[in-house]
Every structure is written in C-alpha cells, then in structure tokens.
C-alpha cells in the first residue's frame, strides 16, 4: 500500500492530549469522590501493611512510614498503568476501527490518564514527607524524573500487554496473577537487605527494585546515582520503543482481531 499525507503532518500531540483528557474525565467522572477515590486504595493498603508489618520491619528501616508510602505509591502507579493499558485497545475498539491514527496513542493515553492521578498522589506523598519531618531538598526535583522512568517501563509493558489482550482473552487474568506475585517480589513493604544475598541478587532482575531504591534515596537521603538513573531510563526507553514497534508492526492484525 502507498499513500500521501497523514503520517508527516498528523498532529499527534493534540490527539494524545484529547484522548488522555477523555480518559481522565471518564475515570474521575464515574465516581462521586473523584480523585479522593484514587487515594482510598493506597491509603487502605498502607493501613493494612503498616498494621501487619510495622512491628517487624520498622526496626530495620528508618522512617518506615515514608518508606512504605513511597513503595506503595510507585507500585500502585506501575500496577494501575499496566492494567489500564492492558484493556485499552479493547476499550477503544470503536475508535480504532473508525479512525486512522498511530495505534500506540491508545495505550499512551491510558497510561497518561493514570499518570495524571499519580502526579496528584505524588503531591500528597511530598506533603506527607514534609509532615513527617523531611525537609524539602534539591533531590526532590529528580522525583518526577524517576516517575518518568517508571512511566517508560509501565508503557513498554503496557504496550505488550495491550497487544496480547487483543489476541488472547485470558491475558488479563494472567497479568493479575503475575502482578500479585510481582508485588511480593518488589520491596514495597520490606527492605531488600532483609533477604538473603542470593534472593537479593535474583530480585535485582526486577526493574522496579532499582526504581524504588532511586526514588527513596532521593526522597529521604537526598542522594542519587546518575549512572543507575541513566541506565534505568535507557532500559525503559528501549522497552517502550520495542512496544511501539510491536504495535506498529501488528496494527492491521490488531484491527482484524478487534473486528472479528
């Protein structure tokens, strides 16, 4: 096939904005509590995890409340973004089958909508950090950068999941199970140092471990490793690029599967 126009001039930025805005409106419009509802889930998780584990873990971690809040914030973003991305093509079936535009925008807008609420959650987290005695410091300026790295990771995973979910009905169930396992394989509510060296080495294959460490270091210790941050950013960018390439290569198969 061949043709002119479109690809070089299509205002993707405007389309991405409108689709993300629509997703945000739909997510928040559906509930009376709006944004407060999105805070309820992590708040409840915090209460339960703190209530159960504080007695054992708090001795090994300084400032366990903030440690746990930061872990939950980053975990929830990854879990919500990937899960919402997973169903994005199926939710946007009518849009995909009636308009021609780069398909990755569907997944990007889904992840973008989750990012929007997460940015507000981060503001709440920083307010909590200040309340808990942390002095705002320059390293806090890197927190959005680290969130952006996690966004890359979630987008990359989300793109693969979204393609898989169009192909197979049970990908959603499989991802639910994997997410449940991944939660316990990520040091959200426990310190990595509490595990055996062998297990620690194994868990380092989980990219969320690095993101959590970088974020917590910037939040509470005021330190960060530029090399590790750059490495994580590069890895996330490569994964996202691979996801976009997959979606573009399979754009017609996606339409076929959505149609029949």
């Amino acid at each position, binding site marked *: *096939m*061949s043709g002119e126009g479109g690809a070089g001039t299509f205002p993707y930025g405007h389309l991405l904005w*409108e689709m993300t805005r629509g997703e945000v409106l739909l997510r928040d419009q559906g509930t009376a509590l709006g944004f407060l509802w999105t805070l309820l889930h992590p708040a409840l998780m915090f209460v339960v995890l703190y209530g159960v584990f504080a007695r054992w873990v708090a001795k090994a971690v300084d400032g366990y409340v903030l440690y746990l809040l930061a872990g939950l914030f980053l975990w929830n973003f990854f879990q919500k973004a990937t899960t919402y991305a997973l169903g994005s093509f199926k939710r946007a079936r009518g849009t995909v089958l009636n308009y021609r*535009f780069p398909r990755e925008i569907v997944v990007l807008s889904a992840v973008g909508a989750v990012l929007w609420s997460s940015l507000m959650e981060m503001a709440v987290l920083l307010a909590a950090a200040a309340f808990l005695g942390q002095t705002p410091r320059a390293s806090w300026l890197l927190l959005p950068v680290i969130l952006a790295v996690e966004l890359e990771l979630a987008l990359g995973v989300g793109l693969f999941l979204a393609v898989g979910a169009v*192909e197979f009905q*049970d990908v959603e169930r499989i991802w639910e199970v994997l997410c449940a396992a991944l939660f316990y394989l990520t040091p959200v509510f426990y310190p990595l140092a509490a595990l055996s060296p062998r297990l620690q080495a194994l868990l380092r294959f989980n990219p969320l471990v690095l993101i959590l460490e970088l974020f917590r270091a910037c939040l509470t210790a005021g330190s960060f490793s530029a090399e590790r941050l750059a490495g994580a950013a590069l890895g996330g960018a490569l994964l996202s690029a691979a996801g976009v390439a997959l979606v573009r290569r399979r754009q017609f198969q996606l339409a076929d599967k959505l*149609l029949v």
Partner: protein
Amino acid sequence: MSGKIALEARGLGKKFTIGAREERRTVMEAVARTLTGSAPRRDLWAVRGLDLTVERGEILGVIGENGAGKSTLLLLLSRILGPSEGTLRVFGKTDPFFQLAAGLRPRLSVRDNMALCAALLGLSRADFQRRREEIVAFSELGEYLEARLGELSTGLAARLPFAAAIHADLDIILVDEMLSVGDLKFKAKCFKAFRSLAAQGKTIVVVSHDLDSVRALCARSLYLRGGRAEFLGETGEAIERLKTAAR
C-alpha cells in the same frame, strides 16, 4: 495528490481467519493448538479480486446486501485494515470512515467529543479552534454542547463526526450508512456538502442501503456481491442488478 486518480485497487482481497468450531481465544487454547497441531480455523474472504479506480472529484456509491463486503472495503480504503492480497494505492488523506458516532465517548459531553473527533480526524488544535464555530453551526448541535453524547438520539449524535469530517481537510471521504439516519433537512445539507466537496476535487465513497440517496448522489456505483464486484458502472444499472438479485 498524484494526477486524477484518488484510489486505485488491483486484485484487492481481504480474508479473516475465523474459528471453525466453538473455542475461546486464550493463551491456553493457543498452547494446546501448538501441542496437538490441530488448527480448527478457516478463512473467510470478505472482499476478493477487486479492481477499482476512483478519480478525484468523484462520488462513488457502494451497494450490496448485508455481508457483501461493503464495510470491509471501506476499512481497506481507509487503511485501517490491511489487504490479504492485491494492491491498494491511496493518493490523499483519507483517515476515517465514520460509522455514525462509533469511536466517540457517549459518557462525555458533545463539546468534549467534538474536540476529540476533530483531533482523531487530524485537525490541529489551532485549526479546530478556528473552525469550531463552523462545525457547531453545520452540526446544529449548539444547544446540546454540554449534553452527554449518549443522551442524544442516533441521528443527532451522527451529526457530530459528520460535521467534523466535512471541515477536516480530508482528500477522500469514506461514508458508511450515514445517509440513512439524518432527517430530511440534515440529509439535504449533507448532499449539498458532498457535492461542494466533490466540486473542490475531493473524492467521496458512500456505502449505503438507501438506494434513493445513492442514486441521487452518485453517477457511478460499485455493486458488491459475496465480496466480489458484481458490477461497476452507472448507478441506475447497479441498483437494478441489486434489485434483480434480491427478488
């Protein structure tokens, strides 16, 4: 744009692979199929062996019974689906084939959907701001802007993507069953807009069961039957052949 031709298809075909027995599309089924080697699937050709040339400024009708391949053809021409065989050359911007308000968001307001629809049709923010009043005026939805799209009747909701598409600088406009939902006044307005766009060199392909509208609008029509071109030529004869086959 390249010369007079807007669309050119040669031996165009599209098949879908569908299940030959009841089964779920799951990872487990796929693994089982790989292990057992069984593939209970078959090919269904929706369009096959189609040769078609449409010139700039032409309004082409596409008619046929349900399942004839009309909508699949529009999806191919819009390059939303990829062909399974043959070639398709499209000269110009032909993003959508708008099937009423499908693809928009019924739970959002008409105003929000208008902005979304314009963006999906490739209008930049600046272009949309400039043309918003024209789009609202054409759609006659001014008093419904804050209503949810899903609260509108089918006919009113269909006006939104139509009005946006008319103002979206498309070179080739693909219309699926649009003509059958509007009231007489809006339909007359659409016909006028189609003719005006054709006079400007835009190409329009209209799929419809509303044969009177096709006859009024299109000098030439494609009659599809079972995915193949049964007839391509003067609209009156295409309609007669369709009616004869239906008897």
